């Protein structure tokens, strides 16, 4: 039995957001993942991001596939509807849900097995269709639930816990997402809350397909000293300093004074802004080719380029492309959907 409800009692002085909700209102049931699992940190970051953004939880839909990562949506936002679908098929289910109701916020949660192996095709086509969603991969380089087999994102240089070599090259999902035309591509680390929370917020505000690859160590099967997806390795090789990111709510004033040339403000559809502090080597996240170079050149050095890798603020989303009505399709009255008997007479006449 792995359903554990959290007690509803909480401290009366917990801080509230503008909706009068506390962080507890954004939580889910107790996690049943291993203690120290990176996925739980991502869950915590998601809770924090939604709380700080004052999002009404019931206007969010969480969709996942199968695997440790895909279990995670039960551990946050218990006031949101969730859909734990079948292995590798989260993208199609989210696509259908998003077509049906364009007004909800869609958070797709997947893993590296779920996305880079069984679901690779669906991932590609969700990007291509510009589904308006935040697609998070909790990436630990291995299959946890089936006890530690390599996944397709595990680095070739990264052996298993038992020392078995990984013979195949890794699939880099962030590079793929950029090549397939995702409008928002970021990479982060479950252990880097300061970077992860603003990235989640930015991904949620982004109107279109936002991809977030989060390296999330598997404490049980892929956190040994030789693993490139371990806490120690990622901490030592995280190139997060290239771009530091702040997320500014639509209602907030920009109070910090950013010196010319060291920062850039990116306006989002909903009026929020992303402030990029350009430190160290310069990377323009509006340039997809530069983003791929940044990922590849860091990877060649054994480093992980994190932060906002690519953004295209002008991109159309799926509903723009499909030219669907501004109202959610699932709320249209039958009187507008069913043409009635009179129209049918004309159709019969044409067929006779």
């Amino acid at each position, binding site marked *: 039995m792995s359903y554990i409800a959290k007690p509803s009692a909480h401290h009366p002085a917990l801080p509230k957001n503008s909706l009068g909700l506390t962080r507890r209102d954004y939580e889910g049931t107790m996690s049943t993942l291993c203690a120290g699992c990176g996925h739980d940190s991502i869950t915590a970051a998601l809770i924090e991001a939604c709380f700080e953004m004052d999002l009404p939880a019931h206007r969010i839909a969480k969709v996942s596939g199968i695997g440790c990562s895909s279990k995670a949506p039960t551990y946050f936002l218990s006031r949101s509807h*969730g859909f734990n679908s079948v292995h590798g098929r989260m993208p199609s289910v989210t696509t259908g849900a998003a077509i049906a109701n364009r007004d909800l916020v869609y958070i797709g949660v997947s893993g590296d097995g779920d996305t880079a192996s069984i679901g690779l095709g669906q991932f590609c086509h969700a990007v291509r269709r510009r589904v308006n969603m935040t697609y998070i991969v909790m990436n630990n380089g291995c299959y946890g639930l089936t006890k530690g087999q390599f996944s397709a994102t595990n680095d070739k240089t990264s052996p298993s816990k038992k020392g078995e070599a990984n013979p195949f090259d890794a699939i880099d999902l962030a590079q793929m997402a950029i090549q397939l035309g995702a409008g928002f591509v970021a990479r982060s680390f479950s252990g880097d809350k300061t970077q992860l929370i603003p990235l989640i917020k930015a991904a949620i505000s982004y109107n279109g397909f936002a991809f977030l690859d989060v390296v999330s160590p598997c404490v049980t099967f892929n956190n040994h000293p030789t693993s490139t997806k371990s806490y120690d390795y990622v901490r030592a090789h995280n190139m997060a300093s290239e771009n530091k990111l702040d997320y500014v709510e639509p209602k907030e004033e920009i109070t910090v004074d950013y010196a010319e040339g060291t920062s850039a403000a990116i306006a989002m559809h909903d009026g929020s802004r992303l402030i990029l502090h350009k430190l160290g080597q310069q990377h323009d996240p509006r340039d997809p080719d530069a983003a791929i170079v940044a990922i590849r050149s860091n990877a060649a050095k054994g480093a992980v380029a994190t932060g906002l890798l690519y953004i295209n603020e002008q991109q159309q989303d799926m509903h723009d492309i499909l030219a669907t009505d501004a109202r959610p399709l699932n709320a249209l009255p039958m009187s507008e959907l069913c043409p009635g008997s009179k129209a049918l007479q004309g159709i019969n006449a044409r067929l006779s």
Partner: protein
Amino acid sequence: MSGINDFVAKFATVNGSGSASANTIFAKTLFRMGIPVSPKNIFPSNIQGLPTWYEVRVSEAGYLARRDGIDLMVAMNPQTFKEDLAEVVPGGWLFYDSTMPRIWPRDDITVLGVPIAEMCAAKWSDTRQRQLFKNMVYVGALTALLDIDLEVLKGAVGDQLKGKEKLVAANMEAVALGREYALKHFDCPLPIKVRHAEGAKGKILVTGNEAAGLGAVYAGATVCAWYPITPSTSLAEGFEKHARRLRTTKEGRKLYGIVQAEDELAAIGVAIGGGWNGARSFTATSGPGISLMSEFLGLAYFAEVPVVLYNIQRGGPSTGMPTRTQQSDIISCAYASHGDTKHVLLFPKDPTECFSMGAQAFDLAERLQTPIIVMSDLDIGMNDWVTDAFTWDDKHVHDRGKVLTAEELDKFKELKGKDWGRYQDIDGDAVPYRTLPGTHPTKGAFFTRGTSHDENARYTEDGRIHARVLDRIRRKFDTAATLVPKPEITIRDKGGKTGLIYFGANTPAVHEALDALERDGIKVNALRIKAFPFTREIVSFCAMHERVFVVEQNRDAQMRSLLMTEANIPGEKLIPALSYDGTPMTAAFVRGAVTREVRPAQAAAE
């Protein structure tokens, strides 16, 4: 038996030569003369170059099943001359392009040679025109040979070429060319000919796929996802065609969303996502797609998500015969997916039912919160049928099922006396109440999952709860049996002991066969299955009869198996009558199957 308004003409042509359009014009012209016709397109899985046939049965009596024995063969394809010649009945006619004269080794038929290529070469200089107009030249010759009303033909040509008026005139020139030649060289009309009739008056000529697509529009479907596969593709295209015209706002916004998915897995995934989110959603596929969609169908069954799936069946197994028809997915659809699953199936008999069962399918899907599979096939889906005009009752209220609003969630306990839980059987019909994402700030959220869950949608590994939930879902099938369309029963012999069960595209063949059997003195009572689960009427029909033929198009008597398993009908009572060569069933086949059993001596003599 052939004669005026009663014959079969067959056109043997080459795929991609433009003959399809000429053949359609031919059939449409006869239909518009009021004559019941049943064109069958027998085509290869190919775009250009392989043999293709178009069979048109003409029957003033309204018998629209395919009939063996060709009265008039229009042999335009040298690749198939030999087999085309063999198919002509003694006393029949063979029409061909005699530009290259040929000896036909049969003296029991009349050969009609028209130097079509030569005539076209003399008339047109453009090679493409020479090729395309050949088809209209043979249609022109047929107007003389069969006494076809030229004005009606002109109307049909005009319809086919709407917006290309110049082409209409050119096509009619080709028609005149063929017609004049035939009038000059042959004794026109032939004894098989047509005349204006009443049988097709008030009917429409349409394919089942277009009808089903239109039905989904009327059902209020807003999410359609599909992957191209013969013979289902034209269903999604039909939906889009009609939705674009009927469901686009003045501002050009669409009141529907269509996704051509990357594969069948994604197609059903999108449809399930849409159904979960409260939009009427569907996909269309054929056998191979059903295999691919099975995992998702199990999810929708167990997580109780409404979705409609049209299965336009084709010849299996495997890739099988993609352009031929069969009814061989009955078992795979009834039990699609691993574990204990069972799905509601609907069996339309013609395009009219493809339309009407559409709205019914979506009502059932939302009422029962489960996948509904509409079992059409290539014959119904892709061939033009003379069928009853579509009707729609404006008073019909679409049944959106048990979906709670925010107010109903607030008052749920007050109204129902119990707390809401996603999978609680509140009403005793085994159908729980569902909520849609975004409905209420604090109530009604739940986690939809394919893993085992309790009545409140919480994950469980408790075997007792798992069994309890499975039992309730099974009971939902009993509710389904009270809602699905009841069978159509025709009693020809009150108290008679011989019955026959049929369904779907076999309907015209069965009706014709039963008439023929009755003329032979064999009266057979009949029942047409319209849906699975089987209703009481089916059980009592079987109980009333000592032997019951089950007519179907598959090798393994799948409907018979389903009747034995699900309705407890003893197998020894159910006599299979099985045709599975991929061609639509004939009345002769059904008559033969019954006669062999009922009057073995007569059957042997025949």
